[in-house]
């Protein structure tokens, strides 16, 4: 089973051959090209030198193209996984959590996937859908990857997933969960190890409904996900919503909205503020003195990425999530423990999902005994979710979205004095997303 391959970098030979071949193409093209030019442009009687120089430039340009091509012609044997995430720019921190988790998963697997050598090619989508799409094309066509994985953002996912599945390659999403892909656009070849976007706010809605809360004030950024979150919340929360406020995407100062909120005097506040928006909102909410007065319930807002920056301003905050570092199971203990040891910081759900993504791929390759051409077999294996997930045992719904538990989490001061998320109770057991019935897939 174990193919003894030198590290991938050593596979330069075929690439060089490729270059030489391109060179040959060029050589044969040189003379005719020159003669065409002289016949078409009789007015330009220039010295031969110039023509040669032009040809040299053409040659160099084609060589660059050739180099690109050359890179790709490496050994075909190892499993190739293209992992697309945001690595540069403000969102780069999420990408780092994901990438580190992928590396940890590979380490746990002995740098083998399904027993085969593995090569992971990372791509930085810069949070732009068109760049993500280009990376996907590059991974499919140039690197000829067997799986594409990753993707933080719904809009990038909506551009990338159909490209990948359309090319007959398996896509394993490890964060974004747009409803389109859980519903009408679901695909045999598309899996996600995270969730459908709405599941998390649904859990929060359920919890707040169960608590008999009413007079809730809802806030989110003014974009598609923000509105989806609030509507997901309202699917299970049937009490009175005092007001729904949508703020500018990327807004930094929430003082005006916080003043309005105080004016309405709600009993509870539900927010969705991912990333730096969340850090700013939480700090300003605490600074306004509201933390002690009106409890804050949030989704995708307080996590292991934002907690170190927010600190005690998050104290007492409620979140719902399918996973937490303190979730009790063997796989999770190993993941969280080794992660902290290796990278020196606490992993987040972004990381856990990405770790799971690699394990899911491993389970598929293992099931087909390394026969990467056997897509049907791999899909069938993945549908069983037969791997030791950091969230414990779960199953896939017909639309390849996890059916999983959701927990209520609370930001508390841990034993070491640092802030951490602690699981309080289970809100949903084996929760299904709201869109699977729109997915025509049967299995």
């Amino acid at each position, binding site marked *: 089973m174990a193919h003894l391959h030198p590290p991938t970098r050593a596979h330069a030979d075929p690439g060089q051959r490729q270059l030489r071949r391109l060179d040959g193409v060029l050589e044969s093209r040189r003379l005719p090209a020159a003669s065409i030019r002289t016949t078409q442009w009789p007015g330009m009687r220039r010295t031969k030198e110039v023509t040669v120089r032009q040809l040299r430039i053409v040659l160099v340009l084609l060589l660059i193209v050739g180099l690109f091509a050359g890179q790709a012609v490496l050994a075909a044997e190892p499993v190739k996984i293209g992992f697309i995430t945001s690595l540069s720019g403000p969102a780069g921190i999420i990408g780092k959590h994901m990438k580190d988790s992928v590396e940890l998963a590979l380490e746990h697997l002995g740098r083998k996937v399904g027993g085969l050598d593995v090569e992971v090619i990372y791509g930085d989508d810069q949070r732009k859908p068109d760049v993500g799409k280009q990376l996907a094309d590059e991974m499919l066509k140039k690197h000829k990857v067997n799986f594409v994985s990753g993707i933080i953002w719904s809009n990038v996912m909506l551009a990338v997933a159909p490209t990948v599945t359309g090319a007959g390659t398996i896509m394993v999403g490890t964060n974004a969960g747009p409803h389109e892909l859980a519903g009408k656009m679901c695909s045999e070849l598309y899996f996600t190890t995270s969730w459908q976007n709405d599941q998390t706010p649904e859990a929060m809605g359920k919890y707040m409904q169960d608590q008999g809360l009413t007079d809730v004030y809802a806030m989110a950024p003014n974009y598609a996900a923000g509105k989806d979150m609030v509507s997901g919340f309202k699917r299970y929360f049937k009490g009175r919503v005092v007001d729904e406020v*949508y703020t500018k995407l990327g807004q930094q100062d929430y*003082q005006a909205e916080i003043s309005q909120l105080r004016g309405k005097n709600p009993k509870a506040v539900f927010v969705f503020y991912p990333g730096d928006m969340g850090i700013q909102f939480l700090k300003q909410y605490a600074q306004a003195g509201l933390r002690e007065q009106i409890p804050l319930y949030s989704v995708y807002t307080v996590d292991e990425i934002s907690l170190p920056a927010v*600190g005690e301003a998050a104290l007492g905050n409620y979140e719902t999530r399918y996973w937490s570092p303190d979730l009790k199971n063997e796989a999770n203990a190993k993941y969280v423990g080794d992660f902290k040891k290796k990278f020196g910081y606490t992993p987040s759900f972004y990381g856990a999902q990405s770790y799971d993504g690699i394990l899911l791929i491993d389970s598929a390759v293992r099931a087909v005994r390394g026969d990467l051409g056997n897509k049907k077999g791999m899909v069938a294996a993945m549908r069983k979710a037969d791997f030791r997930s950091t969230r414990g045992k779960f199953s896939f719904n017909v639309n390849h979205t996890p059916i999983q538990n959701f927990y209520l989490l609370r930001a508390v001061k841990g034993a070491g004095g640092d802030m951490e998320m602690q699981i309080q109770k289970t809100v949903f057991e084996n929760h299904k997303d709201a869109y699977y019935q729109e997915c025509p897939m049967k299995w």
Partner: protein
Amino acid sequence: MNWLLVVEQCLNGLQFGVMLFLMAAGLTLVFGIMNLVNLAHGSLYMVGAYLATAAFNRTGSFLAAVAFALAATLAIGMLVEVIALRTLYERDHLDQVLATFGLILFFNEAVAIVWGRAALFTAVPRALSGHLQVLPGIPYPAYRAVIILVGLAVALLLYVVVSRTRLGMLIRAGASNRTMVGALGVNIRLLYTVVFGFGAALAALGGAMAGPIYSVLPGMGEEILIQVFVVIVIGGIGSIRGALVGAVVVGMVDTLGRAFLKPMLSTVLGPSAADNAGPALASMLIYILMAAVLFFRPQGLFPAVRS
């Protein structure tokens, strides 16, 4: 309408405006005197925020941290001026935009390399974490009140410096007539470097004070930078007074728009239409304001006199 709330929102608007002014003052000076479009001004704000945060977390003294950030950013600003920007003054705005766009990329990544991509922990200093009762029923965060005071103090200080001191005379002269200042035998290069460093320090002050309420992370300067451009274009490029007025106007319009536009629209259009149109319109409001101002006064509200 609840008038107490309106008063509170006006305070919020003023505070946001003052924040914008700290950025705008430096930027407009650099515009006015060196005729330089500096997109990287937001990066200096970011650098100031990072330095202040790092120093605060280490020393525990907010004042010392701010002082350190000011001094260090002043030095960094002067260094950048000498290395990269000095040769750009005589170039057209396009070259300046491009080069400073490059500087943004550089600073964002450099900060990420030094401090990592994750947001740094920041908190309001203990002494300022309380609230003031501005009016009965309006508790106002003390820290934000301090921002307003500091901003107004800086405005006053700038006014005194620009109108009463020799440096200020040179600045005013430089803004209206560059060759004349040269004729006075002043070392123009040094003046430029000093002014640029000065603007950088102001940006750093803004960043240092923004740290505890916003998040300190790479790229934090860009969002506010664009708003600051709106401020100085509305105020009139090169004018400190214009920057102050523009900042307060933009701060007020943005804040009041966010607070009251939706309720006002819902009485006209009905609640569901207002839910859709309100936030969209509120986020575009300052740009609409800017377009309107420029339509009627292409030079802005208080154009610097230029001969």
